[in-house]
């Protein structure tokens, strides 16, 4: 991956050294490789680019393997490979879909070391007692994590708590506590690592006007050309945003609906489905890209990198800036973090802390920024981004030069502006967070009614 990452080497001295070392150690024995890895880590530490340098000796860590398990957009092989190279122990990334992942954490906790958790999953995992609290003191960059996560606010703006916000799921009172704690403590359930604000993707050439409101998704004008996300827990929130936007209903809490609100929402969805509004529903990133790229739909709930993936195919596609207005609209936020499984102890636990610290040290933040996601510690991510990339992805300015994706493929022309504007414009307009409702079982049943209607 690094080899393709040439545009970046100026701001990435450690990365360049890593690349050289990597080349010279290719096809050598495991022992030499480990020495090489240690050298890289040393070089990185020397350049101060990576703050979380290993404090345990290569000899002791060489047999350690960390299994980081979670969804594909959060647990990325290239990131694990880089971590292994920098840290000197083995990191295995395993991908599952959201529901398979949480099922595995709960039913086979010992097959996982680092769990990839969304806020609501962190709440569940704590409840089931499969994770241990993360000692905040051991996280070097903790004080630099944006207050969105640590304090529930940013830039004087209170982060809304419809759904399960990362801040709400962040703390527990004791390392083995099973219930979340409202307010800052010394123990975290999970360490945020990647997040974004989701909205609608659309074809500007076919929709014909700028989309800034969710209600366009259910506009009869787009009958048979719209799609919605089919992960019940979050699909229903996208639907709720649409209905609220159209003025059909006002929810108490979109992220934790009452039975009546669930009934209203699902009945309305069934009505729309019978009218032929939805061409399809989608469950994976690739499906949403295919639907848009193959001309099946022209407007759908969508993720930012999926919109970018459509654009790379030279098909115009816009990520709708659905800023909050009149108490309606807003993005649906999500955040994935890392949880330490309960069985970790001794050297392996130390290695896990090294790994968490590495995650916040910037390389990963730079990597995810290049496909439109954000790091909880932008100050370290910035060191791994070119000034042009920083201006484009975080500041919402017109790209000073061609912007490449994480693998070095050009994705945005010079002069383009990121949809939705700067980082602050986007996160301040998050109106609800991915969730698991109290009435999840009932909601699921009603969602199945929608599916089979």
């Amino acid at each position, binding site marked *: 991956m690094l080899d393709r990452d040439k545009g970046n080497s100026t701001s990435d001295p450690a990365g360049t050294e890593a690349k050289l070392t990597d080349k010279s150690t290719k096809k050598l024995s495991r022992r030499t490789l480990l020495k090489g890895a240690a050298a890289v880590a040393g070089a990185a530490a020397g350049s101060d680019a990576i703050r979380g340098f290993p404090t345990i000796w290569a000899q002791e860590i060489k047999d350690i393997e960390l299994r980081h398990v979670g969804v594909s957009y959060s647990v990325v092989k290239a990131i694990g490979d880089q971590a292994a190279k920098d840290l000197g122990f083995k990191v295995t990334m395993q991908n599952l879909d959201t529901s398979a992942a949480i099922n595995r954490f709960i039913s086979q906790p010992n097959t996982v070391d680092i769990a990839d958790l969304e806020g609501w999953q962190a709440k569940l995992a704590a409840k089931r007692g499969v994770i241990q609290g993360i000692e905040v003191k051991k996280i070097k960059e903790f004080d630099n994590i944006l207050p969105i996560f640590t304090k529930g606010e940013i830039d004087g703006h209170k982060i809304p708590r419809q759904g399960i916000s990362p801040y709400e799921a962040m703390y527990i009172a004791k390392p083995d506590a099973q219930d979340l704690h409202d307010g800052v403590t010394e123990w975290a359930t999970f360490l945020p690592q990647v997040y974004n604000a989701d909205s609608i993707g659309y074809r500007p050439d076919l929709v014909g006007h700028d989309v800034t409101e969710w209600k366009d998704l259910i506009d009869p004008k787009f009958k048979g050309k719209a799609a919605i996300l089919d992960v019940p827990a979050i699909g229903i929130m996208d639907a709720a945003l649409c209905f609220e936007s159209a003025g059909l209903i006002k929810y108490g809490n979109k992220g934790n609906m009452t039975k009546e609100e669930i009934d209203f929402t699902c009945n309305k969805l069934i009505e729309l489905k019978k009218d032929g509004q939805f061409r399809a529903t989608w*469950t994976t990133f690739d499906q949403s890209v295919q639907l848009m790229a193959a001309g*099946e739909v022209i407007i759908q709930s969508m993720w930012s990198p999926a919109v970018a993936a459509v654009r790379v195919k030279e098909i115009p596609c816009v990520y709708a800036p659905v800023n909050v207005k009149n108490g309606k609209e807003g993005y649906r936020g999500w955040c994935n973090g890392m949880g330490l499984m309960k069985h970790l102890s001794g050297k392996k636990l130390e290695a896990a802390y090294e790994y968490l610290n590495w995650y916040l040290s910037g390389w990963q933040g730079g990597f995810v920024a290049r496909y439109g996601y954000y790091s909880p510690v932008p100050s370290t991510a910035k060191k791994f981004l070119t000034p042009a990339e920083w201006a484009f992805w975080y500041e919402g300015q017109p790209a000073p030069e061609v912007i490449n994706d994480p693998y070095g493929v050009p994705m945005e022309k010079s002069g383009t502006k990121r949809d939705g504007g700067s980082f602050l414009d986007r996160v301040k307009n998050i109106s609800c967070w991915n969730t698991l409702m109290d009435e999840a079982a009932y909601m699921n049943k009603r969602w199945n*009614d929608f599916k*089979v209607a």
Partner: protein
Amino acid sequence: MQSSQTPPRANLAGWLCVSPLVAVLVPFFVAPILVVLAASFFATDGFGGLTPGFTLSNYIEVLHSALTLKLYLATIKFTVLTWIFTLIIGFFVAYFLVFHVRNQLLAIGLFLLCTVPFWTSNIIRMISWIPLLGKEGLINQALLATGAIHQPLEVLLFSDLAVVIAYVHQLTIFMIVPIFNSMARIDKKLIEAAIDAGASRFDIMRLIVVPMSKSGIALGTIFVVSIVMGDFFVVKVMSGGGSASVVSAFYEDVGVLQYPTAAASAVLLTLVLVAVVSLILRTVDIRQEITR
């Protein structure tokens, strides 16, 4: 276990013969089914926690829900449609191979050709329909170009039609193989005798071929019905999420950690399938037909 009537050695050989099957079935089939059965009677705290105990509430909930009925109707619709098409296609392919291809080597060669699509994965075979059937797919483009239609046909993809097409494509081989097998056993002299006795082609089909292929048809039916009823992925992808099946619904239950209701639905589906299969076995005595 040894009875005094059977010689010990024969008895031992018998046990050795079934032991691999038992070794596979007990840990990988019987044990999981028992776990699911047990879980279906447990209560849950809604967060994935199970409280051991005995409650019928999961079954009551599943059986009282209009959703269950709708899901079964949807699943049965797909099953019946798939069964009809796989049966018709499978039967005539087998008939052609057995009775019309004179050269046995060629027949076997053609039979193997039928299996070629199965050298790739199910999922790939299913997904490859999408570029063909889509709004901007090959079929729509061709029809638009010839002027036969002016708007792309949306019914081709993300519809029940697409689901049935994918199932038929995936499962016809399960009909061809057993029907081919039972047809190949029909003595050709029987057909000749029927012709000599003045039977029409339709009579031969009706009175000889179909009755004597019954076991193959029954076996193929069991395969097709149990696969379609136990599947959710094809429905999910080919209907574009627009339809659901019994299994897709309880998969969603598992997704939100509602294990007991999912388990109850699974047990119910197993019972329904057992009933269907025993009904088929009642109509056709497969054991007798095979050893014929």
